C-alpha cells in the first residue's frame, strides 16, 4: 500500500435547508454554506487512519468543481491529506463524467485504493464510485462499514438491506463508504495553517481529455408535495379510536 486517492465533492452543507427557486430552474445556492460532502469526509478519515497505521502511505485528495472548491480541498489537507488536485470547471458534472475524470487522474496517480463517499448529499445519485470501478475495470466494495487491508487484498464489510455482507477484493480497488465506518476527526487550527503550505494542483477537464457534456437534461426543479398538517390527540384512548376509525389497527 503506497497511495490512496480520496474523491471529494463540494456540496451544500448538511445543515442548510435548501429552497427551490420559484421559477423551477434549480435550488437557491447564493450565499449558502458549502462543505465537504459528509460521506467523503468519512472516506478521507478512513484513508488517513490507514496511512497512520502504515508507513510511507500518501493520501491524495481529488475534487472536481468551481475554483472555490479549493476551500474543501484545504479542509482535506488540514485533516491530513498529503496533497490535493482540483479539476476546475464551472460545468455541472454528472456522475459518469466525474467517474471519467477520476479515472484520468487514477491513471496518472496509480493509487492502490480509491475511497469515495457512497453518495453526495446534493444529487443523491449514488453512482460515481461504481462507475469509476467499472471503467477502471477494478473491483468495487460499496457501503463499507469496515475495511481491513491485508497485503494485496482488502476485506470490506458492507451495509446492505438485509444486514451486513463481507466481500474480499484484490487491490487496486474502489471502496465507497457508509455512515458508520468511522467518525471523522475535527480539524485543529495548527493543521489549517500547515495545510496552506501543502501542494494543491489545479488542472482542467480539457487537460485530462474529458468532456463535460450534459447527458441528462434537468427540465424542472420543484419542491416536494407537502403533507397536510394533521391532528393532535389528547391521549392514548383517542389515538386508538382515531386509528381504528381509519382501519389502521
Amino acid at each position, binding site marked *: 500500500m503506497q497511495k490512496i486517492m480520496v474523491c471529494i465533492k463540494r456540496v451544500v452543507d448538511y445543515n442548510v435547508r*435548501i429552497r427551490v427557486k420559484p421559477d423551477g430552474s434549480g435550488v437557491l445556492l447564493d450565499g449558502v454554506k458549502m462543505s465537504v460532502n459528509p460521506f467523503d469526509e468519512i472516506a478521507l478519515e478512513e484513508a488517513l487512519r490507514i496511512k497512520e497505521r502504515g508507513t510511507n502511505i500518501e493520501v491524495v485528495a481529488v475534487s472536481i468543481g468551481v475554483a472555490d472548491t479549493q476551500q474543501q480541498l484545504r479542509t482535506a489537507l488540514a485533516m491530513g491529506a498529503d496533497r490535493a488536485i482540483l479539476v476546475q470547471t464551472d460545468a455541472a458534472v454528472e*456522475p*459518469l463524467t466525474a*467517474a471519467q475524470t477520476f479515472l484520468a487522474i487514477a491513471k496518472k496517480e496509480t493509487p492502490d485504493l480509491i475511497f469515495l463517499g457512497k453518495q453526495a*448529499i*446534493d*444529487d*443523491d*445519485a*449514488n*453512482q460515481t464510485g*461504481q*462507475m*469509476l*470501478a*467499472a471503467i477502471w475495470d477494478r*473491483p*468495487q466494495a*460499496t*457501503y463499507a*462499514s469496515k475495511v481491513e487491508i491485508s497485503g494485496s487484498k482488502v*476485506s470490506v464489510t458492507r451495509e*446492505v*438491506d*438485509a*444486514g*451486513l455482507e*463481507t*466481500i*474480499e*477484493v*484484490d487491490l487496486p*480497488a474502489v471502496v465507497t463508504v457508509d*455512515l*458508520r465506518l468511522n467518525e471523522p476527526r475535527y480539524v485543529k487550527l495548527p493543521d489549517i495553517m500547515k495545510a496552506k503550505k501543502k501542494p494543491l494542483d489545479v488542472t482542467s477537464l480539457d487537460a485530462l481529455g474529458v468532456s463535460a457534456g450534459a*447527458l*441528462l*437534461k434537468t*427540465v*424542472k*426543479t*420543484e*419542491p*416536494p408535495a407537502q*403533507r*397536510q*398538517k*394533521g*391532528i*393532535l*390527540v389528547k*391521549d*392514548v*384512548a383517542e*389515538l*386508538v379510536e382515531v*386509528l381504528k376509525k*381509519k382501519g*389502521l*389497527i
Partner: protein
Amino acid sequence: MHKILIVGEHDGKTLNPATAKCVTCASAIPDGEITIALLGADTGAVAAQAAAIAGVKSVLRVDRPENEHPLAAAFAPQLEALAADYTHVFGPSTSFGKDLMPRVAALLGVPQVSDLMAVETAYRFKRPTYAGNAIVTVEADPARKLVATVRVASFEAARAGGTGAIDTKTLSVALPSHTRYVGAKAGSTDRPDLQTAKRVVSGGRALGSAENFKLLFSFADKIGAAVGASRAAVDAGYAPNEMQVGQTGKIISPDIYIAVGISGAIQHLTGIKDARTIVAINKDSEAPIFEVADVGLVGDLFQIVPELERLVS
C-alpha cells in the same frame, strides 16, 4: 416500441417484492414490453414467481455457479451483454440495485437516472435530490440506452396473474476473479420486513437504550408491525444499521408509520413521506415530526407505548 429489461432481485428462493414494484414503474413506459432478468446459481423457483407478475412478457434465466451471490463486478458484464436487445434497463433502488446498476450503466457508457419516482414519458422522469427536498424532472437522450434505479417506495407492487414465458440464456461472458463473496450476517428477525411491511413502528434516540427498544418490539409484535429506527438511534447503538429509516437508510411506504421518540430530522422524513398515515409520539410538542404527522400525541413514550399496546389488544 420500448423494450424494458428489469433486473430481478432474489435470494435464490424468493423474488424480492421490489421486483414487482419495478414492473409497475416499467408499465408506465408507453408502448413497452417487459422482461425480467434473473441471475443466480439456480433461478428455477424465482423465475416462476417472476413470470407470474402481471405485465411481464418474459423472464430470462442466467444460471451459472458464479452467480450464486450478487456481486456487482460479476453481474454487470452479464447485464451489459443482455442489455443489447433493450432500450431500458431498470433495477430496484435497494442496496442490491444501487450497487449494481451504475456499474452496468458505466459499462454501457450511458448515464443513470437514480431513484426514478415517476414516469412522464419513455425518456422523461422525476427523481428526488437534496434528501427529497427538491424533485427534479430529467430528460435522457432517446438515442441512448436508459439505465435507471426505481425508487420502490413510489410504486405499488404489480399484481399476480401474469403468464410470462421463461427462457434460459447462456452468456459467454468472462467474469472477473478479483471480487469474492465471504459471508453475510443477516439481522435475525421473525418480524415483517421493514421495506414491505404494511405497519411500521419506529424508535428514536428518546428510547435511551437498546434495552428500551424492547418496548417497541413488544408493541410491534402485537400489531404485526416491522420495527425501524432513526439514524440517531442507530448511531447511539440502540438498534442495528439495517433498521435505519431515512435518506441513507431505508425508504419505506407502509400504510401506517408510528414514530416513537423521533424528532423528525429532514433526513428521516425523506424515508417516510410515502407512508399513508404517520403517527407521531413525542414529548416535545415542537418536534418537526409533528409537521408531517397525520396524528400526533404529545407525551412520555414510556407511558404511552405500554398503554397503546394494552388498548389495541
